[in-house]
């Protein structure tokens, strides 16, 4: 099976004023809905869940970029999500401990703060690591494997193995990482009480704004010369090489950007949900996000975002309504979308739009 059997024709429709305005109009509508209507209408608990879906949508955006545009099937985004999440979690734990040891170290028998933890007491360092650590790892990995022309299924398996190994590493180092429990029991973020509905509402807005900005940035990237090169690499890597470009660089940069997005999402996840643990970063959660992107439509960035929100919402709703058998429904939803619309919801909408024109 080749991973890029479906190649949408990248033909820009004739730029009439109508089509030109359509995109921004939709974006503005969604922004108003997300930033104004949702916080007013939804109760705090539901708003918190929506914030979580949007956090996942940030990771999905990165997957959409790497997989949909660049043809790199990334099955281990959990690793980068985790690096960002743990960087944030470590900072919050240290701030709360106020010079003492974080709670889990006490019951894990650690007597002295590990050297790895010390710099994370500094908020600037912690926030920088949220993005830099995942990007550095992705760059190193990309530089190694893309130059060796590892691609397709081999690259996918590699990223998946990385996620599996990362989880084992985290669980094994209980004194350093909290083991299976992960890091939990956070009370405040930069002096704000996380238990307050007000704080959670602000967090929601922050998440929504970050997602919006990243989406615009990613769109800009896709429409740039670099974006066209990326699509070209996806559709014919060798041809691009013969034209004198280095596909390894293009892929590494894209992979690093998607990793940075996952890291940032991980950091936002921690105050929104209140926990970061290995269970969130393994093979299965990483796959779930790829599935969400497939459902939403991997060839459109908006599709990736939409997929993450739809799948997140479906998961919550199904499991609340049918506590016993919700996993079957979740699977059925995926199969249904994939058989009826192999290009996901976005593909369906795009086709409809083209036909009604």
């Amino acid at each position, binding site marked *: 099976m080749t991973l890029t059997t479906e190649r949408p024709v990248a033909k820009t429709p004739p730029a009439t004023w109508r089509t030109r305005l359509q995109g921004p109009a939709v974006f503005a509508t969604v922004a108003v809905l997300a930033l104004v209507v949702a916080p007013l209408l939804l109760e705090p608990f539901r708003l918190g*869940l929506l914030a979580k879906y949007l956090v996942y949508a940030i990771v999905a955006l990165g997957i959409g970029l790497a997989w949909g545009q660049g043809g790199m099937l990334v099955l281990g985004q959990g690793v980068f999500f985790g690096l960002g999440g743990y960087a944030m979690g470590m900072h919050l734990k240290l701030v709360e401990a106020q010079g003492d040891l974080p709670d889990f170290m006490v019951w894990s028998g650690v007597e002295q703060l590990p050297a790895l933890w010390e710099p994370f007491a500094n908020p600037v360092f912690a926030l920088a690591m949220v993005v830099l650590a995942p990007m550095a790892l992705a760059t190193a990995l990309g530089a190694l494997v893309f130059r060796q022309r590892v691609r397709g299924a081999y690259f996918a398996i590699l990223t998946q193995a990385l996620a599996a190994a990362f989880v084992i590493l985290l669980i094994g180092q*209980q004194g350093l990482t909290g083991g299976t429990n992960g890091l939990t*029991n956070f009370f405040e973020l930069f002096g704000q009480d996380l238990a307050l509905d007000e704080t959670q509402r602000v967090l929601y807005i922050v998440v929504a704004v970050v997602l919006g900005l990243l989406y615009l940035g990613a769109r800009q990237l896709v429409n740039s010369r670099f974006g066209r090169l990326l699509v070209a690499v996806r559709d014919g890597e060798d041809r691009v090489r013969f034209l004198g470009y280095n596909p390894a660089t293009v892929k590494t940069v894209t992979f690093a950007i998607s990793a940075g997005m996952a890291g940032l999402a991980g950091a936002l996840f921690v105050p929104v949900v209140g926990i970061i643990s290995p269970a969130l970063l393994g093979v299965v959660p990483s796959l779930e996000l790829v599935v969400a992107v497939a459902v939403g439509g991997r060839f459109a960035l908006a599709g990736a975002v939409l997929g993450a929100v739809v799948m997140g919402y479906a998961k919550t709703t199904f499991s609340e309504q049918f506590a016993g058998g919700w996993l079957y429904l979740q699977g059925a939803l995926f199969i249904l979308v994939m058989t009826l619309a192999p290009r996901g919801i976005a593909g369906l909408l795009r086709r409809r739009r083209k036909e009604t024109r």
Partner: protein
Amino acid sequence: MRNSAWRTAIPLVALVATLGACGAEPATSQQAGGGEDSIKVGILHSLSGTMAISEVTVRDAELLAIEEINAAGGVLGKKLVPVVEDGASDWPTFAEKATKLIARDKVATVFGGWTSASRKAMLPVFERRKALLWYPVQYEGLESSPYIFYTGATTNQQIVPGLEYLKEQGKKKIFLVGSDYVFPRTANKVIKAYAAANGMQVIGEEYTPLGHTEYSTLVNKVVQAKPDAVFNTLNGDSNVAFFKQLKSAGATAESLPTMSVSVAEEEVKGIGVDNIAGHLVAWNYYQTTENAANGKFVAAFKAKYGADKVTSDPMEAGYNAVYLWAEAVKKAGSVEVEAVRKAAGGIELERPEGLVTIDGENQHMFKTARIGVVQPDGLIKEVWNSKEPIKPDPYLKGYPWATGLAQG
């Protein structure tokens, strides 16, 4: 072309609409705090994922207790209505569903959790929202949240008696085998401190990831080290592989006895009784524990869920939790959390495991420790008990050898 696009679009639109309807439905149909003549209580266990096999049995026991209490007239004249949620063996999901039960369903209390990780994930939710959680499984101690009642054993009611029994039997060299997560690691810390103070020797300590099933290397290591006994804190499926390998390596319950703290009647069925018969376990309750309350519990459970079902310690602790909460509510005359907490201290009930008393100070239970031997019929026979309920001591403050473990 145009037709086919619509043909695919319509089912999808229908699907999303159904989803929307599902999502909107609870908002209208659920009123706060149950109705006039009912009280909502939450049940939150893993009904899917690796922990489902164990946690479903606890849910069943809790539902049985609710049914029995309702049949006897309910609490404060009101019927209990369970709201069941799936924690999906995923710790953040436990936190999310706990929030949902408290904030949306406005349940009076929640019974739930199994793994320590799920409890640690839920703890901030309950503390922050000042709601009650009843946690039914033995655990590693070093915790006492004002908003959690612990109806399973803490270390001094299970692990310490297990060690005392081994010492009594003259076992001096101990090998520790455990799953790699917080309970085995913390339990082994306690075991090492005990051994050091009691002339016992820990000659090996090995961990394997949860769900690990390849034990030939580890079993070889254990057999070669020639310990007098193995202290086993493996969880779940791993026990199946471990005991099989142990048997095929030629170790018997006589030559190399093991003391397990996470293997109960339900797990014995999975491991295969041939592989584990004769080995030791430490708990507070067995299906064979003799008293009137247990006879009733076992009979009722089999009547409701099938004659081939067994009852185990965590199930009994979950079953007790519902009764203990109901008793506290009756005493308080209200389901209000602070009133229930205040009323709970000192409540005494005859339960299937014997007399259970709530310690008002740390919200753990006084429980009788029992050491058992797995029988060829798959049940467990008690060979030793602590005579009377042991006062819970989650931080092991009453044990001189444990100073330094419990500064938390």
